[in-house]
């Protein structure tokens, strides 16, 4: 490589050095490593993919994006904080490597082949970032640009997916004879849909099939799309485009990232870019390109990242806060917000009837829905991918805390009329949904700590005992376990208000009771 090669330098230092006890080796060749490239540098061994991912992140942050905002904060030890302005908002100087969500989340989306929505005002780099991800997949910039779908009010299904060949339309004797000229973008490993909220509703349904089921259909002909990462952009995420975005399509989006404002303090960098006519996407170093096989392998490695029980329990506890709606169902299992929503009744009326609980303390009162299975799966995979990106083998609570707001941003809907939002200190959460979700998770963790569930979780113990299997469990032991479950339920419901986590505990105990009851019946039949 030329010793002076603009935009093509990648940090040679580990991007996230971690202390490990391993035998010390001092290679005399290190004497000649330094700022001047000799051109005879030894060929590096196969690079770890997590390191390559970090290299890609830092190249984008340092070269492609002019003013990154470090909003994914990590700390090692105490950090410096400042209370700023009349509102006393906290400015934190993180004491550990922190990241910009606008780059990091799309990168994690790329490597996990999920779907990412960029939201924000015009001209904030949403499309440019999506194009960078396309280039990262190895596609030429020109192809990425050409394959990008631009939403507009006249967009038809044929515009989106492809046209039947006119000659076949005339000559075909049956539908199978009609060949389709599929649009090239369907075969791309990174798919970009710009301003997706300007696509007409009918065309959105066709898009939903491609996004959800990974195939396209025109006149009975099927095109199977490759596994790919998706990037969509919208000027806002509330469906405020030309057309209302259908709920199913919104639900298919895994993470939502917000393009933050440009800091004019970086204007000089912008000026240089204009004067020198630089387009970062055209200068991405080849070493950063991920082949299809590498993305497969990275995905496999991400799935192997462990979610420790102590982290998983906190996520279970958090999610259990939101689904309960005590007055919505007469039967225990149906006391959920979903039941309330499906009934079509006025939300305000239903909420007014739900009294007796501390609505300020109950986190469930802050939302209008619960967390879906799809959201949970997305949350887990993004937490794993963030841990992988940071070079860890297991997910830390902070990883979960950082990705959670971006996954649930458009999924967990706040009830703005809830008492929590009427408190002056919480007023900002009405508009700052990311901040609210993070706060919600923190409050859930506080409650988890207060209940000392890390050490005292009898439901978890019963579940763990059941997970060991029923082989060789005697009738006597089974009866004893049933008794314990019944006693625990009796203890839990005695004189207590019903909160979300208790509701889920009771349902879990009911499940265990039913499994033991069935097993007992089988034992007795032997």
């Amino acid at each position, binding site marked *: 490589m*030329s*010793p*002076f090669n*603009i*935009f093509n330098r990648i940090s040679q230092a580990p991007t996230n050095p971690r*202390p*490990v*006890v391993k035998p*010390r080796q*001092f*290679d*005399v060749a*290190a*004497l*000649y*490593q*330094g*700022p*001047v*490239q*000799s*051109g*005879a540098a030894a060929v590096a061994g196969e690079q770890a993919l997590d390191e390559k991912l970090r290299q890609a992140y830092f190249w984008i942050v340092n070269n492609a994006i002019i003013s990154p905002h470090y909003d994914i904060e990590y700390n090692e030890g105490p950090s410096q904080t400042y209370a700023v302005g009349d509102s006393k908002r906290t400015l934190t100087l993180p004491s550990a490597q922190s990241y910009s969500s606008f780059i990091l989340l799309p990168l994690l989306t790329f490597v996990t082949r999920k779907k990412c929505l960029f939201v924000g005002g015009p001209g904030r780099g949403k499309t440019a970032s999506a194009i960078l991800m396309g280039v990262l997949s190895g596609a030429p910039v020109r192809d990425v640009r050409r394959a990008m779908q631009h939403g507009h009010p006249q967009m038809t299904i044929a515009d989106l997916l492809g046209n039947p060949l006119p000659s076949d339309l005339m000559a075909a004797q049956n539908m199978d004879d009609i060949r389709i000229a599929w649009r090239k973008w369907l075969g791309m490993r990174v798919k970009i849909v710009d301003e997706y909220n300007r696509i007409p509703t009918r065309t959105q349904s066709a898009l939903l099939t491609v996004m959800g089921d990974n195939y396209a259909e025109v006149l009975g002909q099927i095109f199977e799309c490759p596994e790919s990462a998706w990037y969509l952009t919208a000027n806002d995420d509330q469906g405020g485009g030309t057309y209302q975005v259908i709920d199913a399509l919104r639900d298919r989006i895994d993470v939502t990232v917000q393009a933050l404002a440009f800091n004019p303090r970086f204007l*000089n*960098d912008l000026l*240089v870019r204009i004067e*020198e006519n*630089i387009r970062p996407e055209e200068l991405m170093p080849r070493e950063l390109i991920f082949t299809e096989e590498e993305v497969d392998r990275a995905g496999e490695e991400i799935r192997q990242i462990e979610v420790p029980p102590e982290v998983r329990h906190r996520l279970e506890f958090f999610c259990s806060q939101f689904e309960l709606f005590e007055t919505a169902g007469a039967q225990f299992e149906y006391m959920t917000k979903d039941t309330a929503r499906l009934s079509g009744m006025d939300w305000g009326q239903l909420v007014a009837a739900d009294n007796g609980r501390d609505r300020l303390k109950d986190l469930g009162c802050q939302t209008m829905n619960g967390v879906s299975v799809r959201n949970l799966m997305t949350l887990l995979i993004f937490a794993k991918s963030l841990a992988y990106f940071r070079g860890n083998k297991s997910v830390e609570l902070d990883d979960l805390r950082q990705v959670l707001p971006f996954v649930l941003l458009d999924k967990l809907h706040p009830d703005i009329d809830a008492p929590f939002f009427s408190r002056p200190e919480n007023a900002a959460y009405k508009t700052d949904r990311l901040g609210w979700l993070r706060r919600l998770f923190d409050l859930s963790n506080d409650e988890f700590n207060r209940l000392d569930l890390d050490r005292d979780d009898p439901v978890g113990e019963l579940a763990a005992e059941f997970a060991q299997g029923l082989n060789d469990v005697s009738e006597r032991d089974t009866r004893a376990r049933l008794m314990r479950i019944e006693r625990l339920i009796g203890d839990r419901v005695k004189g207590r208000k019903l909160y979300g986590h208790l509701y889920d505990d009771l349902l879990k105990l009911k499940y265990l009771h039913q499994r033991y009851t069935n097993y007992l019946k089988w034992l007795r039949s032997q």
Partner: protein
Amino acid sequence: MISGPFAQVLAAGRSQFNARVVEARRRYPAFDVQALADFLQDGVAPVVQAVSAHMPDRLAMIALTAYDIALDLVGQAFTGIGARSKIVDRVWQELLPAYIHILVNAPTEVFALLTNAALNIEKTSGARVDQWLSEMKNIAPLITTLSVLQATGQVLAWRAGMTHFREGGMAIADTLPPALSLQMLGAEAGSDWQLIKKQMQQDPWWCPDIKQMNVNEHGISIGHFTGLGGAFPAPPELRACEYGFWVKSADRYFLLMADVYGAVLHGASQEEFEHGPVLTGPVAATVQGSSLLTRRGKHNLNLPAKELVLTCNLHTVAVSSPYTYGISLYPL
């Protein structure tokens, strides 16, 4: 003022050279154009001048290579008013002209080897870059190929106090012509290289250079208080290990290595200090009053005897105390 052949090369490729400066300014916002001008005049021009005398047909190519590297060095503030030291200037002014006979055939490699090596030695606490520069310059007439230059630089770096290169340096010296190895290590001409090598392997505190032996026979002091430019924020604690010593000072951790050529401190982790492999064995030194007694002799310790700590590995005793931020090392 740049003149002569280099000026002609610059004039001929003026637009190309100017474009490279524009690129550099874009990459390095604090790029100092004056520093570039100075470095071209004081660092690059002498090299180009020497090339012009030695192999004029390689002049343009070498000038272009040197120019690109100069841009990088200026951009990263390795030269100029804001430079951390003058070492890069010294390498280009003093050392590179001595290796023109190799440089003309492998310019990028020679520029990189010598510049990077000098920077690495200079930033290693305890290493002696002046000694390395001087010895590299003196031995230049004996070096005829790039590979020998590379090996020579490494052996002399070890000799200049890069103690962690001991094993590698010894292995490399073994591949060189014995006469060259003997000369580099300060042995008398005609000595038996195999014998010398064996003795050096057995005793890290022995070398064939009597002058060097005398320097460190009386101990090496390393560390010292961070407030006075040292490495330790608190009096250090030590654990002996096969490489040397694990050192803890407040919340900072180091690996201390020493031999006859000097001592160096490398960064280490808490895990290494607490869980890294350690050596345990009898302490092969004693303290009598204010003196340390080893089998090699008696050393005066300028420390209170109270709470003095002796930590020994196979060849070295490290003396530390709660009353000092430094560590004194003596051969056993």
